[in-house]
Structures are given as C-alpha cells and as structure tokens.
C-alpha cells in the first residue's frame, strides 16, 4: 500500500529522509484517514488535529534548516487516553474525568515529544483500563476494524483499532493484565508489554500500580520496537522504573531464531476454553519456529492456572486504593450536595461506571482488616510462585510461546452481562503481568471468519530484545508484515 496512511513508521521516516513526504503531508493523510474511518470505529475520543499539524510544521522547518530531529520525527501516533497530556483533556475513559485537563505531561508524553512523534488523537479505552472489550468506556464502545460488529479487545481497544485501521502507524497502550496484548491479537497488530519498570509510569493514571505498564502498538515488530526504544528508560519521577539501557530493543531483530530455545507453554496450549482455530494457529507457528532452526521444547508454568484468580484480587485491591482520590474536591466531576461527605459520595456514584464500582467494592473488601491476609496477601504469594515458574522456564528457554487470548474478537454485547466470562479473556495474559516479565502479541493468521489470531511471546525480565527477535523471525517467515491488517476489510462494503 503506497498511500501514506498505509506505511509503517520506519517507511515514513525513510520517506521524509528522502524528501518524498513531509511531516505535514503525513499528518494530513492520517487526518483524512481518521475522518474517513473513525465515525464507524470510534477509536479516538479526541482528535488532536491542530496540535498535530503545528507540530508537523515545526518538524518540517527543522528538517529543512538542517537541524536534528527525533527518532520518530513526523510519525503519527495514537495515545491511550490514560496518559496525562498537559492542558489537553485526559479522561481515562471515565465520566469522573470527562473534562479533566492535567497540569503536566506524562514522562512517556515528554519522551514522545522529544522523539518528535506526532500524537494525532487520544484513544478510547475501558474506564480506567478496566475491561477486555472497550465496552466499559464511559463514552462509546470502539469497534473492531476487521468486523464492526465485534469488539477490538481491551482495555487499549482504541489504540489497537487505530493502528489496525491505518489512523496511525503507532499507538501507545497500557497493559495491566493483557490490555495491550489481547486487543493487539483481536485487531491483528503487534502489541508489546515490556518488563515492569522499563517504561516510566509517571503520568499514567494508575489502575493497579504493581501491574500497570506502558507499551507499544504497531503493524510490525520493528515499528513496535522502535516506539519502545523511544519511551523506555529510567525516570527519576518513577521510583519503580528500572535502571537499564533503553536502547537495544532492535539490536537482535534480524538475527533469526537458529539456536534459540522456544518453550511452548503446555498450560496455555492445552487449556480448556481455547478456541480450536487459535490452538491450531499457535501450533502452526510453533512448527514454523522448528522449521526456522529453533529448539522447540515443551515447558510448564504449573502455577499459571492460579494466575487469573490471584490477578482478580490484586487488581481490584490496588484499583480501589488508586481510585480513592476521585472525590470531586480537587479536580474532575463534582456533584454538589449539602455536605462534603455527601458531595464525595454523589460524585463517585455519578462518576464511576459499573465495572469501576465492582472493582472498588471487591478491592475494598479484600483489603479490609481481617481479610487482607486471606485475599491480597495470599494472592501475592501466588504471584511469587508464578514468578518462580517463569524463572525456572527461562533457565532452559529464551522465549516462551502460547496463545494471547482464548478466542478471536467476540461480538459487541456478548460478554457484558457476565463479568467472569469477560475476565476469562485475560487468562493467558495475566501470568506474565504477575511475573513482571515482558510479553507481546504477534499476528499469526486468521480464523474461518477472517478474524486475526495472536501468538503470545514471553521473554525473561529485561529480555525484550530476544523476544522481539523471535517475533520478527516469525513475522518475516509468515509474510504478514507488509499488509496492515484491517484496513482493507474496513474499506470493503458489507462487513458490518
């Protein structure tokens, strides 16, 4: 696809270097693409047209003047609307922050500005990133570009859909228990959740602090790695950010998998509830690894089946604490009432959606005196066991593989009445979240309905480079790289 909105980030950088396209033209092409598609998809809560154009113009002027430009100069990008942007409304997908304008930029936003990336919009999400379908957005559900009757996954559904639909080659998402990987799988794009602490969380509106991590979406592995390099690195404002060099994500990209040991996680691939089409696609991918010269071995993460229940204690517990600050006193929604206490209660009642309230209730219960040991502390012990499972597996393997999600994209409304069925989407994603290890989703094919299937790759702590190398090798072998998935079907009639 030669249109600008079909090019990858790397291709757009090259086009500018060669003088074949300006940043302004690139931004204009993506604005047109957004205008043509987003009414149907609803990926963006806010289009940053003016800011994007003036930023593009500034980049073009600097380029023309021979001044240096950043590593993502002129590349459009969608920003999940849970990262704070100074003076620009940041909602976290919630009514309680509907008109909230942060007084500061998230570290990731600053780093993207330093890299001269051009944010074109703020992407829709499940409220406070709580959900697996984007249907918990307080504003509207985002639709899957591959099938507008289906969900894009969540919670970073807007980011995934924007990239799949060609609204931007890159997007920032956040992943707490699969919120990058699962929508990436369902939208047929690459989504990377790096090691916990790789990317600063300063300015990421907290959901479950011990799990939240910022990561990248792209239509290919190289772009995703490029974006990750731009945002990673320690940050004095985030005490949990790790002191490891941000560069090197792309260092091994073209080294192939010969000599690598790829572990196939039995608990994932043999799990109940895994759609046969997904299992088959993953098995074919594993076969390709063997064909490409990797040592393929079976591995076990014996405590992984306990991951989902542990996750759904830790996550609401931390959420209930993090969401305590939304009380109408300092910022965001305020519903007036005769007393301060009544004002707080009325504000929270009107401002939070059903899923946020559910997690606040569960979390407050789990953390309350007398239950803390039985729930939160016990879940943390499970977490330790799962982290040890990963350590043991990585003693023998360079990368682990399995399905990203149990099914392909499901129809809108299919699971909204059943929270447990919705939570089940995260079953293969949460173990890596609990262990803090890097993990990603790579498109490896489609099911009989033409819906994308994602393979999950998991690396050891700070082992992104090798994980990305394994992903890149399979991507090249499968030959899906050049076709931005979702764009074609969207333009064809009759798929809605």
């Amino acid at each position, binding site marked *: 696809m030669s249109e600008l909105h079909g090019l990858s980030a790397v291709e757009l950088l090259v086009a500018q270097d060669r003088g074949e396209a300006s940043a302004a033209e690139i931004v204009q092409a993506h604005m047109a693409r957004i205008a043509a598609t987003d009414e149907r998809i609803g990926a963006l809560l806010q289009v940053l047209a003016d800011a994007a154009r003036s930023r593009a113009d500034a980049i073009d002027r600097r380029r023309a003047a021979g001044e240096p430009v950043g590593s993502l100069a002129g590349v459009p990008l969608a920003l999940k609307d849970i990262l704070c942007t100074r003076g620009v409304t940041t909602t976290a997908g919630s009514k309680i922050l509907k008109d909230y304008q*942060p007084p500061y930029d998230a570290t990731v936003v600053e780093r993207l500005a330093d890299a001269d990336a051009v944010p074109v919009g703020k992407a829709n999400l499940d409220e406070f990133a709580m959900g697996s379908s984007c249907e918990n957005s307080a504003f509207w559900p985002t639709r899957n570009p591959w099938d507008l009757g289906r969900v894009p996954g969540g919670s970073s559904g807007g980011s995934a859909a924007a990239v799949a639909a060609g609204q931007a080659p890159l997007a920032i998402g956040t992943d707490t228990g699969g919120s990058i990987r699962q929508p990436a799988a369902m939208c047929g794009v690459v989504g990377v959740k790096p090691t916990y602490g790789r990317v600063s969380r300063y300015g990421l509106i*907290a959901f479950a602090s011990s799990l939240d991590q910022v990561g990248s979406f792209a239509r290919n592995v190289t772009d995703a790695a490029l974006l990750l390099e731009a945002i990673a690195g320690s940050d004095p*404002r985030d005490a949990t950010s790790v002191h490891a060099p941000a560069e090197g994500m792309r260092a091994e990209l073209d080294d192939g998998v010969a000599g690598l040991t790829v572990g196939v996680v039995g608990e994932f691939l043999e799990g109940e509830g895994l759609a046969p089409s997904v299992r088959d696609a993953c098995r074919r991918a594993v076969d390709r690894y063997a064909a490409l010269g990797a040592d393929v071995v079976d591995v076990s993460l014996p405590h992984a089946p306990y991951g989902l229940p542990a996750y759904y204690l830790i996550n609401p517990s931390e959420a209930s604490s993090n969401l305590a600050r939304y009380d109408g006193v300092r*910022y965001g929604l305020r519903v007036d009432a005769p007393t*301060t206490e009544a004002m707080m209660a009325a504000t929270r009642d009107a401002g939070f959606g059903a899923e946020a309230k559910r997690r606040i209730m569960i979390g407050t219960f789990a953390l309350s005196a007398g239950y803390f040991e039985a729930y939160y502390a016990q879940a943390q012990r499970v977490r330790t066991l799962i982290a040890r499972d990963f350590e043991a597996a990585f003693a023998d393997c360079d990368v682990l593989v399995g399905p990203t999600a149990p099914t392909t994209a499901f129809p809108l409304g299919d699971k909204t009445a059943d929270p447990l069925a919705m939570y089940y989407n995260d079953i293969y994603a949460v173990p890596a979240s609990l262990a803090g290890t890097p993990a990603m989703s790579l498109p490896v094919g489609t099911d009989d309905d033409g819906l994308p299937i994602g393979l999950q790759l998991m690396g050891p702590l700070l082992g992104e480079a090798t994980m990305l190398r394994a992903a890149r090798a399979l991507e090249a072998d499968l030959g899906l790289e050049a076709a931005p998935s979702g764009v074609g079907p969207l333009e064809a009639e009759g798929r809605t």
Partner: protein
Amino acid sequence: MSTAAVEAGDVSGTDYEAVIGLEVHVELATASKMFCGCSTDFGAPPNTRVCPVCLGQPGTLPVVNRAAVESAMRLGLALGCDISASQFHRKHYFYPDMPKNYQISQYDVPICAGGALEVPAGQDGNAPVRVGITRVHMEEDTGKSLHVGGTGRIHGADESLVDYNRAGIPLLEIVSEPDLATPEQARAYLAELRAVVLALGVSDAKLEEGSMRCDANISVNRPGQPPGTRCEIKNLNSLRSLGRALRYEIDRQIQLREAGQAVVQQTRHWDEAGGIDRLAATLPELPAAARQRLVAAGVPAEAAGVVVAAHATGVLDDALAAGAGPGEAAKWLANDVTGALGERGLELGEAPLTGAHLAELLAMVDEGVLSTKLARQVLEGVLDGQGSPREIAAAHGLEQISDTDELEAVVEQVIAENADAAAKVAEGNDKAIGALVGGVMKATGGQANPQVVNQLLRERLQQA
C-alpha cells in the same frame, strides 16, 4: 512503676496505678516535602507550595525524599533502634484535606524499631525512667481545612476551603512503650525526646506551632492486675497540656472504675482552652447547695429559701462572718430588707447594703441602742445610701433612751397628767399601764426604751 506513681502523687491515696505510652509526631526540617520537590517553608499563601504530586493529581507517583529517610535513620540511631529496610503503606480514609484519600505511612515494617530513651529525674520530682521506643516511622502530613460560614465545622459550614501547602510535609512518628507511670514522667519523656530531636537538628520541634505533636495512650489498673482499657488523648500541644490532660484522664478513669462503670476504649480530644474541668471549677454555689448549707448553719428553712431566691446568700454569709446570728440575720433579710427593696423596686445586688451593715444593725438592736422600730428606720437609711447604721442613728438622733435618771422625770410628768390610769395600775389593773407607757414614748419622741419605761412605771406606782 507503682512506686513512682505514688511518689508523684497522681494516684496516691488510690488503689490504682497508671500505664502511659506516647505517640509523638515530629515535622522534619527538610527543605522539600516527603515525596515531591515542593518547599516546606512555613506561612506561604495557601496552595502556593504544591505540585501535581502533593495535590494527588491522577498519574503522579511519590519519590521518597532522601533527607527525610536520613533524618529518620539518625533519630533511630540516637534512640538505639534497629534500622532496617522498610515499607510504605497507604492508610485510607476519605477526608478533603488528604489529596489522595490515603496517607502514605509505614505499617508493619517501620524504618526504626526497638530502641529506648533514658529520661532523667526532673524538677517535678519524677524518678528517672528508661522508656522503650517501639518504633519510629515515616509518613506524610495532610493539608489544612478551613470551614467558612454556617456552623464553621465540616458539617454545616457554608464552604470548606483547603490549603495543601502542608500536604506531604515529612513526619516522623515516635511510638513509646507504655513505660510511663505518671504525668510528670510523661512530660519529662517528651521534654527529653524534644531535646534529642533538637540536638540532631531534624526538626524545630515546636509544640505550640505543631511541628511536634503528641498523643497519649493511657489506662489505669489495680497493682498486680493487667492493664485496664486504654483511651487515646489527642491534641496535646504543650508540656502543660500533656500533664493536665493525663492527670484529668487518670482521674476520670479511676472515678469511672470506682463507680463500677467500664472505661470505654475511645479517642478523646484535649481542649486546653475550654477544658470542662476548668469550667466546672468556675461554677457558683447552686441554689440547692446554698439552701442546704444555710439550714445547716442554723438558718430557718423558710428564710433560707427566701434569701437564696433573692440572690442574697453572699450578704447573709458576710453578715454571719461579721458576727450576726443566723436566725435573726436571715429573718431580717427575708422580711424587712426584701420588703424595703420591693418598695424601691431594687434588687439586693443594686442596694448599698452589705453583710457588715446588717451585722452592725442587729448588734445595735441587741445592745438596746435601737428599738426594732428604730432599727427599721435606720435600715431604710442604709438602703438609701446614707451610710452605716451607727452613722445614720447618730446623725438622726435615733439612739434609744435607756438612762433611768433622764426617764424618771418624764415618768413623773406622765403619771401626773394621767392620774386615772395611774390609779388603775396601782389598784392592780395591769392593762392600764399601756396608756402610761405610750405617754412616755410620745413625750420622748419614741426614743425611750419601752422596757426601761415599763419597769420605772411599775416601781413608781407600786411605791405609791
């Protein structure tokens, strides 16, 4: 413990000993706040020492202040604590002056644990004591609420304003073991701890300004018995408050137990300025108690009631102190004084009558200087502000004539003028003497002592 308690006198004379532990908060003198770079300077205009972090803006994260941690460690070392890797926890409660609706504090893994402070013998006479330090932990302060209009409290104010300048100021909480037995020891401990903090320079530790704050846990028990239910007392913002509040609380708990009532575990707020005990001490003698006391002093019950109702207890007390008889003085106050004041439309407090005046008046009647009738005249003068009874009687020539030589001449004259009556008396008709007495009184302008006149008349007529 019990020995010291008895020496200090707080529980002496009772069968109880006290168990006291203190929680002391110290505001650290670091240049910046606990988890952000905002200045800690005092007295800046509201909400000018704030940033996204200490305002709890969405997405912000705390980064701990190295200087605050080092201050905590230095104090821990000075108190002989074990210093170890520690953990922060979130303490949740919804309150508008807490930006995140939780306070970052330390819970089960504090930075310092298990030290002690040697408290020297003090001027109060308290024995030296070694006080165990349970823990020293770090936490952040809250903002300050200001409730405007209406009731001026959080419930019922028209508006509540919040100043977050103080939100996030680093605090150390120093928790003592319950090793203190008396208010004096507690004061000495707090003073010694303050001296240590000042010597280290980690805080200016001003109790009155709130950079050092103290809460106390206190219980009482009988010797040999386990500690009783404890209460927490907050807002002890001076050494004096600490001593007074502990003394009050010990007393309160002992009284409850003596009355067979349970001490309920609770948090109590010390109000130094408007202390209930202080107000109670300012209450006057109430009517029931006054009546009871007057009756016990010999005042007839009915008169006591009138005196108390007329708010004349003070005048009566003064009169009694000046030597007046209780029955007479009360009767005069209840009848003559009250009546005369009623005619003038005055309250007793508005009249110039003092207890000393009343005592003097009664003494003059007693001495025979004034008849009852004259005494009433003199009283009118006193109530009109003419001076003391003796001054008034002298000025108006109202003293009674009791001198027999002076009266004998008048008696002779009256007998001469009333021969019939005199004859009847001489014949034994006693009733007729009244006319003669009346004649003498009339002749003397009422100043003659009727008893003396009576006696003179009988003597004269029996002789005849």
